């Protein structure tokens, strides 16, 4: 896999850094924040696993999700201002959406396509999140279109002087689309407050990185747009936090955009419609599991004494309750009423 070398190198660098510096304080993270980050990652994972269980049980016809990507998303976006900054997500953004305030119940409403699903009222496939209340832009399926939306949001932020930052995420496969090029080019020219995060998991469905691009690192393309290109190990939550915080500060200062490439791993098949054993070897899959951010972050927090005194077990129990509740509650909610299906093609003036 093309990304392995770099990912291993990034991991080694991060390990070396942490050897000299105890990680919490010098990053300015309080204990409760570290716990919150852990809770977000672990909750996302538990929710995500539940989706697949529901799918296998025949309760939801489709799942696409982000196992392996959670550490990068929580780390990179933890420093955003909730309800103020913008997230323009993609289908693996479950952790990012929770980080910006969506609730497990809301995620499950989308999964069950219920009437009150804030993302789409059951109109879109699961995995297409959005929340106007939290400045999470509604997403579509065609990949990479969202890069331009994030750029436009950042343009408006700059013109309106709102001090907002826009972040968007996409896969390394999607980053080869024309929209990526056009968006980064414009962001560079106008030094817009936007952060483009490429979550490189080495595959676009079945197509390996070596057939997607000729370069090892998507981040190497940043130079062509006069913006920093940052590579970060997506399994290293605090390295992601540091990279995210820097890019956010840079954007907020008016110093312009950043391209961040997080080297991550896709722990599941592409979606519930995919069989990844057809195109990935057992060794490749095993290697991928080595880069799971969750056990790694848990270990780091244990070592640092953050997850002590039974906290880990309490959190696990809480998360299980939350996910059970989200599942049961969402499942019990009403389906959309077909009488509403033709509404909201256009704006409907108040009666």
């Amino acid at each position: 896999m093309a990304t392995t070398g770099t990912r291993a190198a990034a991991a080694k660098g991060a390990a070396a850094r942490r050897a000299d510096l105890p990680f919490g304080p010098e990053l300015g993270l309080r204990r409760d924040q570290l716990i919150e980050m852990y809770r977000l990652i672990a909750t996302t994972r538990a929710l995500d696993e539940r989706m697949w269980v529901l799918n296998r049980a025949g309760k939801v016809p489709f799942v696409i999700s982000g196992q392996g990507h959670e550490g990068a998303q929580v780390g990179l976006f933890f420093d955003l201002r909730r309800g103020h900054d913008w997230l323009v997500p993609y289908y693996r953004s479950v952790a990012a959406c929770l980080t910006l305030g969506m609730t497990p119940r809301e995620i499950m409403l989308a999964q069950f396509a219920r009437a009150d699903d804030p993302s789409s009222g059951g109109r879109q496939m699961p995995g297409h999140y959005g929340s106007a209340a939290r400045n999470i832009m509604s997403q579509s399926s065609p990949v990479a279109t969202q890069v331009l939306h994030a750029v436009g949001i950042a343009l408006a932020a700059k013109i309106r002087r709102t001090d907002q930052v826009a972040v968007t995420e996409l896969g390394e496969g999607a980053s080869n689309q024309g929209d990526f090029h056009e968006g980064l080019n414009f962001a560079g020219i106008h030094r817009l407050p936007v952060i483009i995060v490429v979550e490189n998991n080495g595959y676009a469905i079945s197509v390996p990185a070596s057939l997607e691009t000729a370069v090892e690192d998507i981040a190497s393309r940043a130079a062509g747009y006069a913006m920093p290109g940052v590579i970060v190990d997506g399994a290293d939550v605090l390295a992601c936090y540091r990279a995210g915080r820097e890019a956010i500060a840079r954007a907020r200062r008016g110093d312009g955009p950043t391209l961040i490439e997080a080297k991550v791993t896709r722990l599941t098949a592409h979606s519930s419609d995919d069989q990844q054993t057809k195109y990935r070897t057992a060794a490749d899959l095993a290697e991928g599991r080595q880069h799971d951010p969750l056990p790694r972050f848990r270990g780091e927090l244990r070592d640092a004494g953050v997850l002590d005194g039974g906290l880990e077990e309490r959190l696990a129990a809480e998360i299980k309750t939350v996910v059970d509740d989200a599942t049961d509650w969402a499942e019990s909610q009403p389906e959309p009423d077909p009488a509403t299906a033709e509404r909201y093609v256009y704006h409907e003036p108040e009666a």
Partner: protein
Amino acid sequence: MAVRTLLESIRETLAEEMRRDPTMIVLGEDVGRKGGVFLTTDGLWAEFGEDRVIDTPLTESLIVGASIGAAVNGLRPVPEIQFADFIFPAFNQIVSEAARLRYRSNNAFGCPITIRAPYGGGVHGALYHSQSVEAYFTHVPGLKVVVPSTPYDARGLLRSAIRDPDPVLFFEHKKLYRSVRGEVPDTDYVVPLGRAQVTRPGDHVTVIAYGLMAHYSLEAAELVAGEGISVEVIDLRTLRPLDTETILGSVKKTGKCVIVYEDNRFGGYGAEVAAVLAEEAFDYLDGPVVRVAGPDVPGVPYSHTLEDWFMVDPDKIAAAVRRLAAY
């Protein structure tokens, strides 16, 4: 009342709306310092500055995609596509994104943008500077499509479009920019979207058209008037939503209808108008629903003789009217 060309009317309306609404921005290729390749945005850059009148790179998908994002974050963008022929690189952003944002988010997000684009043939622009592209967009739920044909309507419709909470495509016929003049009141009037106009009343045959063809249809009506054929001409003005009430009302009266469009005939916008009549006016029709449209070749050729061959003109319309009147 001031007399204006279509182009002047559009230019002044853009400036007025920018004065009225500080969130409105204009963006596109060469719209700034140069004032647009047709000078439709001339003066805006000087008056409103480079923050609100943005010379973009040569990237149509960005122009529309960034407009969508900017609209979601509180601006009211009026992007320009330099020629309608170059709207296709932005097709995905318009059709998959702008048109669907409200529906797919169950009304959580809207997309108030007005995409302006010069279109149309008869200007020696050949295959790639002559196209009528409306049919690709009139088919798309979530979009509105407007084609003004007079300076008065251009102003009133552009106001409605810019103030509309949904994405509007606003197509301006290049050949009309400087060739048509008309009175334009100083008032803040609007022409509502979705309403056609009977521009000439008549009894024997209804002719439905828009854009340049709305003018040619009036000329054709004049050509046959001396022969005792009384033609009612309808300028649709808005193509989506279609004002079915006005067209059905007219066809119920005349019983005969010619639909005129300069785009390629097969699958063009007029097909939908014909289909509506075939379904809803069947009991009133006294003759076939006739279409006069561009031939089915991949574009308007450049050479004058070939271009003339392609273009619908008053004579071709009049010929069809005569045949139908005699039916």
